[in-house]
C-alpha cells in the first residue's frame, strides 16, 4: 500500500482542478443553504417538536442524489476514455491501491462538503438566542450518519465509474443505484403485498434492516446501532471489491 498516499494526493488535486467538483459544491451548498433557510423560517412561524438539525439531516438524500454522481463519475470512466488506466497499471501499483486512492479522495471531498454545512449551525448558534435550536445530540448523530452512509454511496459511485468509459453513463448508473439503496427497501416494503406473507419474512427483515432512513433516525436519536454500521461498512467494502474485480476483469479480457 505504499502508493496509496501518492494516488490519494494526486486524486485530491485532480478533483480540486475539475469543474464538476465546483459545480457539485456550489449546487450542494446553495441547495443545503436554501433548505436550512426554509427550515428556520418554518421554525419562526410554527412551534416544532424536533430540533432543526434532525429535520435537516432527514433531507440528506436531496443533495446525495446529484452530488455523489458528480464527485465519482470521473474516477475511472475518464481514465478509461483517455486510455491512461493502461499507463497507470504499467507502473508498479496494484488495483487495490488505485481504487482506495480514488475512493479516498472522493470520500474526503464528500465529507468536506458536508462539513461546510456545519457553518449553517454555527451561524444559528451565533445569532439565535434559544439554545434549544441547537441540540448537539441530533447534530453529532446526523454527521456520524452522513460520514457512515457516505462510505457506501461514494463506493457505489466509484464502482459504477469503473464499469464504463462514459462519465454520463457512470453518473446515471450511480444515481439509479443510490436511489435504489435510499428508497428501494422502504418502497418495496410499502408496495409489495407479497412481502407480507410469512414465507417472505427473512426477505422482509432484510429489507427492513437495509432501510437507510431508519439508520438516520437511530443516529439522530443517539442510538449507535452496530447493524447499521455493519450494513454501510460491508456495503462499501463490497462495492470497492467489485471495483477491483471490474478493473482486473477488464485487464484480463481486453
Amino acid at each position, binding site marked *: 500500500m505504499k502508493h496509496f498516499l501518492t494516488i490519494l494526493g494526486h486524486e485530491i488535486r*485532480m478533483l480540486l482542478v475539475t469543474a464538476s467538483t465546483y459545480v457539485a459544491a456550489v449546487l450542494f451548498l446553495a441547495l443545503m443553504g436554501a433548505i436550512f433557510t426554509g427550515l428556520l423560517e418554518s421554525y419562526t412561524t410554527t412551534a416544532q417538536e424536533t430540533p432543526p438539525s434532525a429535520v435537516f439531516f432527514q433531507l440528506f438524500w436531496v443533495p446525495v442524489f446529484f452530488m455523489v454522481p458528480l464527485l465519482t463519475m470521473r474516477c475511472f470512466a475518464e481514465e478509461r476514455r483517455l*486510455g*491512461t488506466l*493502461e*499507463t497507470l497499471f*504499467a507502473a508498479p501499483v496494484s488495483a487495490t491501491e488505485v481504487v482506495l486512492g480514488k475512493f479516498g479522495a472522493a470520500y474526503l471531498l464528500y465529507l468536506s462538503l458536508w462539513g461546510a454545512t456545519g457553518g449553517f449551525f454555527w451561524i444559528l448558534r451565533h445569532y439565535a438566542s434559544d439554545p434549544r435550536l441547537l441540540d448537539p445530540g441530533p447534530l453529532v448523530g446526523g454527521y456520524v450518519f452522513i460520514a457512515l452512509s457516505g462510505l457506501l454511496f461514494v463506493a457505489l459511485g466509484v464502482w459504477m465509474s469503473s464499469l464504463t468509459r462514459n462519465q454520463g453513463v457512470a453518473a446515471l448508473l450511480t444515481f439509479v443505484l443510490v436511489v435504489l439503496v435510499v428508497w428501494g427497501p422502504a418502497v418495496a416494503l410499502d408496495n409489495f403485498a407479497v412481502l407480507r406473507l410469512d414465507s417472505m419474512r427473512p426477505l422482509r427483515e432484510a429489507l427492513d434492516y437495509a432501510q437507510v432512513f431508519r439508520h438516520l433516525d437511530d443516529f439522530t436519536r443517539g442510538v449507535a446501532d452496530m447493524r447499521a454500521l455493519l450494513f454501510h461498512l460491508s456495503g462499501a467494502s463490497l462495492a470497492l471489491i467489485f471495483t477491483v474485480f471490474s478493473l482486473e476483469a477488464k485487464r484480463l479480457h481486453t
Partner: protein
Amino acid sequence: MPAQPDNSAVPAIEVRDLVKTYGGITAVSRVNFAVARGEIVGFLGPNGAGKSTTMRILTGCMPATSGYAAVCGLSVAAQSEEVKRRIGYMPENNPLPEDMRVSEYLHYRGRLKEISRKKLGPRLDEVLERCDLKRVRHRIIGTLSKGYRQRVGIAECILAEPPVIIMDEPTIGLDPRQILIVRDLIASLRGRMAVVISSHILPEIEMTCDRVLIINQGRIVAQGTPDQLRRDLLGGARYELELAGPDAGLATLLAGIEPTLKISAAHAPGDDGFRRLTLTTTSTTELGEPLWRALTAGGGRRLRGLTRIRPSLEEVFLAATGQNWDAERKAS
C-alpha cells in the same frame, strides 16, 4: 517471491513460445525472441499482426495464454511488480491526462515509479532538458502539440531510468522534424537501455534500430539486422545504369560477367542517346567493378552512371509478410 538481482549476462527481454488467444482468435502464436541489454529493436508488422499484444504482455498489462516472457531475467507472469519497476512503457496513441501540467504529471509518475523525493527534482530537470520540454514544463498537457505530447510520453518512459523501454508507435502522427527529434532521442538511449519500438515508418526503424523483428499474423516471420534481412529475404542484387550504345551482344556480355545477371527493365533512350537499365542477379557478389569495366571496354557503348540499388526495408517487409501469407495459404 524475492526479485533476483539483475545480471548483465541475462537478456533484457526473453520471450519463449508466447501465445495469446482472445475469444478463439490467436493474436500471438508461439513467438520467440530475445533482446540484449542496450540494444534497440524495431518491431514491424501490419495492423493486427500482434505487435501491441506482445508489448502489452511484456509490460504486465495483459496476461499471456501460455509461454514464457521475462524482463531482466524476471518472469512477467510471476514477478509482474518487479518487472514493472524495470520497464518504461509508452502505449499506442500515448494516452496522457489532459488537465495536468507537464511537470506535475512527470512528478506524479516519478513518485509512482518509486523515485525518492530527493532524487526526483534533479532527475525531472534532467529529463525535461533531454526531451526539450523545459519551455513547456508548466503548460497543461491538453494544450500541447502532438510532438510535445510524444516527448512527454518518452520523458515518462525514461524518467526512472529503467533497463527496458517499450514504445508502441512513438512517432505516429508526427511531422518529419518531430520524427527526427524523437528518433535522435531514442538513438541516444542506445547502450544504456534496451529499447523495443514498433512503427509503420520503416526508414525510421532502419535508421534507429540495431535489429528488426517482423511479425505477421501473430508469428515472428523474420528477425535480424536490416542487411541480414535483405540478404535472407530478397537475396541477389539489383543494379541501375545509364548506358548509350548498341543493344546487340549486351545480354551475352552480362551473362559473361555473371550467368544470372539479366536486364529486368529498360527505359526508352533520351535525346542524348542514354537510357536507364535495371539489371538483376541472384548472386550476392559485388558486380559493380566488373560491370563498369565490361561496359566501358569498347563496343561503342558509353556508360555515365552505375549504382547498386539497396532494397528498402519496405521491400524486405513486404517479402517477409508476403512469404508468410503464401505459406499460410498453402498450408490451409
